[in-house]
C-alpha cells in the first residue's frame, strides 16, 4: 500500500479561491439519507427557501410521500425566541401523529436557524425525553453556511455515532464498521466480499433501520467508503475506534486497494485475498474495457460538488486513461484524501473552495473534452457547445465496488457517446446568445 502514497502530485499547490460557490447545501443529502434509513424522518427547521430547495432538488421524488419535511419559520417565530421551542413541539406532535411509524426523528438545522442561534440540540434532548423510546430524536446541521452537499451526511453520521451504544465488554464491539451511505446493492456486494475474506461482525453505517447501530469501542476498526466523512471519522475516533487508511472503492484499482487495506488490518492471507478478489477484478476490468475507447486521452475538468472528485479523477486517469485538467473539490480532507491525491498524475491542478466565475473562465480557457459540473452550469456549458456530465448523479447512482466499475465509466462515456450520435450542429459560442 505504501508505495501508493509516495509519488504523484501530493505537493502540487492548491488553488484556493473565495467567491461564489455554486454548490448545494448539506440539506440536500437528506434526499438519499431518508431512503437509506427506512424508519427515519428528517425535519428541517428552516425557511421557505429550505423547503423549496428540497422539493426542487428532489425532483419528482417529493411526490412519493417522502420522509422529510420543513418546519418553516415565520415572522412571529422570529419575534420572540421563547415560543419557538413550543412551536417546534407542536409541529413535531403533528408530524408524529401523522407518521406514527417513525422510529427516529432527525431535526436538521438550516442557515436561518443557525443564524438566530436556535438551539436544536436542546430541542432534540427535550423532545427525546418526551418521545423516546418510541421515537428517538437527534439533530445535526445541514446548513449551507456549515456544510456543502455530502457534508450533510457527514454531520448526520457523526450525530448517529454520538448516540451509538457503548460496549459493555470488549466482545460486544463491532470489529469493522464501514462508514458512508451506499446503495443497498453495493452494500450487499461489499458485505459478501468482506465476509469471504473471513471478517465477522461487520457493520455498515448508517444501517437500513435506525435501530441497527453498531457498538463502537476501542476494539473497533473502521474504514470509510466515502471521502466526505471527516466529522464522522473524528466521532468514531473519540470512541476509540481506529481508522483503516485506504483510497476509496471506486473502480477496480480503488476497490482492490480498499479491500486490501481491510485484509491487511485483519491479517488476511495473500492467497485468500487473491482467491476472493480475482474473479470480480477480472469482471470489473472487462466491463471497463467497453468504455475505454470513449475515455482514453479525453481531457476532463471537475467543478467542486461532493468531495468525490479526487477519487473520480484518480479512477479516470489511472483506469480509463483520461487526462485530468483540474480537480475541484468543495473541501479537501488532507488526511483522508492523501492516498487519492498521491495517485493523481503530476501537473493536475487542484482547487479547493470556489470562485465560480473565475473557475468558468479557467475551464473555458482549457477547453476540456468533458466538464463535470452541477446542474446550474451544465446546460449553459452545453449551449456553448461543450460537453458536460452533471455531477450529482455520482451521489445517486451505484458507483462503488467491482460490479459498478463499468457503470461508473459509462456515466462519463455517456455524454461523449451521445454527442457522437446527435448531429446537433451546435458550435462553440452559438448557444450563448439565445438565453
Amino acid at each position, binding site marked *: 500500500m505504501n508505495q501508493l502514497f509516495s509519488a504523484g502530485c501530493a505537493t502540487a499547490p492548491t488553488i484556493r479561491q473565495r*467567491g*461564489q*460557490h*455554486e*454548490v*448545494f*447545501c*448539506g*440539506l*440536500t443529502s437528506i434526499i438519499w439519507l431518508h431512503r437509506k434509513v427506512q424508519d427515519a424522518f428528517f425535519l428541517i*427547521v428552516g*425557511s*421557505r*427557501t429550505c*423547503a*423549496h*430547495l428540497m*422539493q*426542487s*432538488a428532489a425532483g*419528482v421524488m*417529493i*411526490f412519493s*410521500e417522502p420522509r422529510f*419535511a*420543513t*418546519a*418553516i*419559520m*415565520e*415572522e412571529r*417565530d*422570529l419575534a420572540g425566541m421563547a415560543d*419557538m421551542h413550543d*412551536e*417546534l413541539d407542536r*409541529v413535531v406532535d*403533528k*408530524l408524529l401523529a401523522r407518521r406514527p411509524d417513525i422510529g427516529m426523528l432527525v431535526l436538521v438545522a438550516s*442557515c*436561518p436557524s*443557525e*443564524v*438566530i442561534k436556535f438551539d436544536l440540540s436542546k430541542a432534540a434532548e427535550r423532545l427525546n425525553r418526551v418521545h423516546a423510546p418510541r421515537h428517538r430524536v437527534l439533530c445535526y446541521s445541514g*446548513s*449551507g*453556511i*456549515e456544510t*456543502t452537499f455530502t457534508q450533510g451526511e457527514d454531520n448526520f453520521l457523526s450525530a448517529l455515532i454520538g448516540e451509538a451504544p457503548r460496549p459493555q465488554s470488549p466482545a460486544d464491539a463491532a470489529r469493522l464498521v464501514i462508514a458512508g451511505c451506499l446503495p443497498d446493492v453495493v452494500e450487499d456486494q461489499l458485505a459478501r466480499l468482506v465476509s469471504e475474506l473471513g471478517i465477522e461482525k461487520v457493520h455498515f453505517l448508517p444501517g437500513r433501520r435506525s435501530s441497527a447501530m453498531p457498538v463502537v469501542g476501542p476494539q473497533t476498526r473502521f474504514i470509510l467508503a466515502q471521502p466526505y466523512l471527516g466529522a464522522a471519522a473524528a466521532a468514531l475516533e473519540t470512541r476509540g475506534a481506529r481508522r483503516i487508511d485506504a483510497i476509496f472503492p471506486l473502480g477496480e484499482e480503488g476497490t482492490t486497494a480498499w479491500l486490501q487495506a481491510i485484509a491487511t488490518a485483519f491479517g488476511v492471507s495473500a492467497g485468500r485475498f487473491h482467491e476472493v478478489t480475482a474473479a470480480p477484478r477480472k469482471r470489473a476490468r472487462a466491463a471497463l474495457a467497453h468504455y475505454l475507447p470513449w475515455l482514453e486521452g479525453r481531457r476532463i475538468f471537475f467543478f467542486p460538488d461532493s468531495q468525490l472528485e479526487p477519487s473520480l479523477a484518480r479512477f479516470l486517469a489511472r483506469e480509463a486513461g483520461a487526462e485530468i485538467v483540474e480537480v475541484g473539490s468543495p473541501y479537501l480532507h488532507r488526511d483522508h484524501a492523501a492516498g487519492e491525491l498521491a495517485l493523481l498524475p503530476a501537473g493536475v491542478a487542484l482547487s479547493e473552495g470556489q470562485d465560480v*466565475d473565475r473557475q468558468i473562465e479557467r475551464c473555458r480557457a482549457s477547453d476540456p473534452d468533458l466538464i463535470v459540473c452541477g*446542474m*446550474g*452550469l451544465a*446546460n*449553459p456549458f*452545453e*449551449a456553448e457547445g461543450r460537453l458536460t456530465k452533471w455531477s450529482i448523479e455520482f451521489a445517486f447512482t451505484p458507483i462503488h465496488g467491482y460490479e459498478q466499475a463499468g457503470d461508473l465509466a459509462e456515466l462519463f462515456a455517456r455524454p461523449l457517446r451521445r454527442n457522437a450520435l446527435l448531429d446537433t450542429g451546435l458550435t462553440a459560442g452559438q*448557444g*450563448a446568445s439565445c*438565453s
Partner: protein
Amino acid sequence: MQLSMWTYEGPPHVGAMRIAASMEGVHYVLHAPQGDTYADLLFTMIERRKARPPVTYTTFQARDLGGSTADVFKTACRDAVDRFEPDALLVGASCTAELLQDDPGGLAKTLGLDIPVVPLELPSYQKKEAWGASETFYRLVRACVGNRSRPDTVAANSCNLLGPTALGFRNRDDVREITALLEANGLDVRVVAPLGARPADLAMLPEAAFNIVLYPEIAETSARWLSKAYGMPFLSTIPIGVAATRRFVAEARTLAGLDGQASNDGDRLTWYSRSIDSTYLTGKRVFIFGDATHAIAAARIATHELGFKVCGLGTYMREYAREVRAAAREHDVEPLISDDHLEVEDAIVEARPELVLGTQMERHIAKRLRVPCAVISAPVHVQDFPARYSPQMGFEGANVIFDSWVHPLMMGLEEHLLAMFRDDFEFNDETPASHLHAHSPAPQPAETEADTPIALSDQDTRWTREAERELKKVPFFVRGKARRNTEHFAAENGIHPITVETLYDAKAHFAR
C-alpha cells in the same frame, strides 16, 4: 412554524430572480448563504435555459459571519458589475441574509456605481414568490421610468404587454399568441415586459396608450402605478378561453378607439365541444386548483365552454382570495384558499371529482387517487415547459386546452362498454384508459378499492354484501360519488343497512 412537505410557491427572492432572468441587461446581486444557488437549476433545468440566470450570490459561510459579511456583499457587487456590465442592478437578501441585516441597498449605494441600483425589500418570512416577483417588477419599472414625462401625442392603438416571466406557466407561447392576435386586430404592441425586455424598454412604457396585464399576480401593481402616475388605463381581462379571448379583444379594440368585433380565427374548441362525441363530457365533475388567474379562467371554460360541472375551486394565492371567492360563488362551490397541499388533497377526496385541473401537486394527488388530471397552473415541472407551441391564451390556447383537458378522460365508447360489460378480463375498470396506458401503469395488486381514499366511506355505515357488489357495477370514476350519495341518503332517511334498493333509491333521488 408551519409544517410543510411541499410548497406551492418559493421564497420571494425566487420571484425577484424570475424578473431578473426574464429580462436582458439586468443583474441581481443576492446576499445569500452557500447553497441558495440551487435556484439556478429551476432556470437551467426546468425551463432549460441556455444561459446561467443573471444572479450573483454572495454565498457566505459560517466563517464569514465572524468577519464582515457586508464586505463580502460589497466585493460581490463590485465584481458582478465589472464582469457583467448590466444596465441596471437589483440588490437584495435571501431569508438568511435578511436576519443579518446588512442592508444590501445601502451598501450598494456606497459603491458609487454609475447604473441604476434597485434595492429590494422582500420579507422572506411573510411573503412568497409571486409577491416577490410583483414587487421586484414594480420597483424596477419605477426606477427605469424615473421622472420621464409622457409624449404629447400617443398613438391610440399602442399598448404594452405586462406580466410574462421566466418560469411562468406557458408564458413564452402566450406572448406569441396574444401579440399576433392583437396585431391582427390593429393594435401596436410596443413593450413586452418583463420577459425579453431591457431596462431601456421599461423606460418607454409611458409612451404607449395603455397597458395590458396578462398575469395580474406579476404586473398588476406596476400597471396601477403607471395608471396613477401617467393616466395610462390598463386592461386586465385574461384571454384564457374562447369567450374571454373575444371579450379581451373587444375591450382592447375599444381602448384603442377601434370598433367592430374580432374574428374567431383559429378557434376550434367551440366546434369540438359542440360535436356529438363531446356530449359525454356534460356534467363531468371537475376540481380546479392553481394560481388565481388560471383557476378562475379554468372554471369559466369548464362550465361554459366544455359543459363540465365545477365541484371545487381554489387557489394557493391569498392575495387573490377575494377574486377566487367571487368565482366560487359564480360556480356554486365552496372556495378553497390554502397553501397546504394536505388540505387540498382532503378537499379533492371530499369533492369526488372525475377530473382534476391543478398544479404539479394536484397531478400527484390525482395519480394517487387514480383520477384523471391535467395541469393548468404553476408550479409545474419540466414536462410543462414543452418544446412544441402550447399557449393557454387566445384561440390557439383554447385549442390546446380542449386537447389537454379532455385527453386524460376515458373515451366515450370505452366508458360505455365498461358500464355494459363489467367483467371483461382486459377491458375493466381497473385498467386505465387505453390511450393512456403508457402513462399510467396498472395499480399495485395490493391496492384494492377500499384502500383508495376516494372510495373511503364512514366506518359506521354498513353496506350489505349485495349492495357492495352492485356498487361495483357503477363505473369507477363516479363510484365514489355514488357511494357518498347513497350513504347521505341512507343517513338522512335512517336506513340501515344499505341494500341494493337503497342504492337505486338514492340514484333516483339525486338524478342529475
